């Protein structure tokens, strides 16, 4: 079983898979850049760091890349924890 959560709330270093992205919550250029950076359903993703000053951006691993996203964008990315990794 998988639990649906967003990239914004995903615990650090928890391996997960992108389920689905709510494109309607994103501005057009944001959505395009997100696709260009490789965000797509089925892609493995992991949260590496969160900036603590206020609610700063999230650094995450997508494919073999590290990408920084602002919280609202991360919130639009629904992920599920890999059953194997979750154990």
């Amino acid at each position, binding site marked *: 079983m998988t639990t649906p959560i967003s990239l914004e709330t995903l615990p650090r270093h928890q391996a997960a898979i992108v389920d689905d992205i709510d494109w309607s919550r994103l*501005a057009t*250029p*944001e959505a*395009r*850049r*997100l*696709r*260009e*950076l*490789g965000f*797509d359903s089925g*892609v493995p993703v992991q949260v*590496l*760091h*969160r*900036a*603590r*000053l*206020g*609610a*700063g*951006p999230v*650094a995450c691993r997508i*494919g*073999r*890349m*590290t*990408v*920084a*996203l*602002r919280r609202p*964008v991360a919130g639009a990315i629904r992920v599920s924890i890999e059953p194997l990794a979750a154990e």
Partner: protein
Amino acid sequence: MEMPPLVAMVGNPNAGKSALFNALTGARQKVGNYPGVTVERHSGRLALDDGRPVELVDLPGAYSLEPSSPDERVTRDVLLGAQSGERRPDALVVVLDAANIDNHLRFAMQLIALGLPVVIALNMVDLAERDGLVLDPTVLARELGVPVVPTVAVRRRGIDTLRATLTGLVGTAAAPAAPAAPVEDIRTLQRRARALSKAATVSETPTRRWHHALDSVALHPVFGPILLVALLFVMFQAVFSWSEAPIGWIEDGFTALEAALKGMMPDGFLRSLLTDGVIAGVGAVLVFLPQILILFLFILVLEASGYMVRAAFLMDRMMAGVGLSGRAFIPLLSSFACAVPGIMATRTIEDEKDRLTTILIAPLMTCSARLPVYTIIIGAFIPARQVVPFVGLQGLVLLGLYLMGIVGAFVAALLLRRTVTKGESSGFMMEMPKYQLPRLHDVAIGLWSRAAIFLKRAGTTIALTTVVLWALLSFPQAPAGQSQVEYSVAGRIASGLEVIVRPIGFNHDIALALIPAMAAREVAVAAIGTAYAIDDTEDASGAKSLVDHLRGRWSLPTALAFLMWFVFAPQCISTIAVTRRETNGWRWPVFMLAYLFVTAYVMAGITFWLATFAGL
């Protein structure tokens, strides 16, 4: 003469494109600008194996052919043959970061679809292998239908093979007609790219990556900001302390040049024009060169090492509060040394509106040229007493002036973002590149191109404006017994200006000082000094210092208003010139001048009248 074939280097940002470009062209490169946009054009000559010359152009990094920044638009337009002032390339070198192949392949596939002859440079294969990823270039070449050459640009590995492959490509195929718009959507391509990269992967073993270890310090909630502050501290210390000696040499050099000219030429207008106008003016600007170079050395090293994106990451939340992105942090910080390199550094900001806002508020960061003005006025009017042990009133006032500028900049950014630079924020979405040891050669080339831009401006715009200023101060010639400064056009302008600045407590001397302060702010003090020295004929001993003069002639409210004026003051001509250059027109520099002038006027006025009513 026939133009040599044009080969374009194209690829994702952080694919190591510039290092490969430097490895292919060596020092034979030119940095220019694409017409009508502030996008740098890097080009260089390269001799193919059979001796034919080609022109190699390094296109700005892009993620796709759908542009989301002016840089990416240039890349697309050049590739489609739609960029003015640029031919359509005859062949492409597509640069991929081997470690990020799953992502970079998608753009490569879009580029191959354009139909131009293509060679793929599979770059940084050594780093990919260290990360445990081994790729088979023959699989890639077979599936993509184009030659694939593994390279390590920084170690010059694969460069000869790349050039040999290029020799075979250039001039073999007739350039196809300009292609139609990209046919497939990004997601379909992306999925194909991922499948292909999987097929080309020989082995993938997860390894503990050292840059992850670095990031766990650099992006740590507590140690991250501490490290950032420490780095900034070192940077500013260096900007001021390392530059002292070279500034001295430049000043000595100009003094010697002036003396030599005075020795060679008879006294007259031409000599005065050369010494008081050109040499004094250009010299006053060139003394900033050492600070600018040191600042850019740090910026380039931090950028090339990959740390800059981490700094932007840490500062993004704070900058987002006023409608900017983390990317604005470094340019604003640089502006504390001088707004000119700060404004030049805004080129790293992708979003045009973000960039424009950052340029417009950069002059509010207290630059080093204002420090001499602050120091002398504070020294003359603020008593040197301790508020609490170790905290002096003078230091507090100085700190207050700096803070005033920062608060002013943030308020201005908030207002500008809701009015003139209103628009959808592009947010902050950035690839965080791997850490790398910056290469001396690449840093040196970057530093040289910044210096060239600055020197070119010092030689043209700034030289011209200082000559105009000199003329205003020298004509018409005063009859004997009258002050030249007062009698000159500038002196008369000052009398007109006095009417405007009288309500905020400024006297005629200050009005006069404001004119040369446009060239360089620290000149304001010297100008007042000159005016008082000329007037001071009855005091034959000349014992009265400038501070005594100031105390005698200015009231405290006037002095405070003057300080406040300099916090917001319409900035120097160099800043206006660089703003014109970076925004491609007079519209924004004029707007900047106007809004800063109004703000300075209102704030100085408020200060003067509050101080007056408070009985200071």
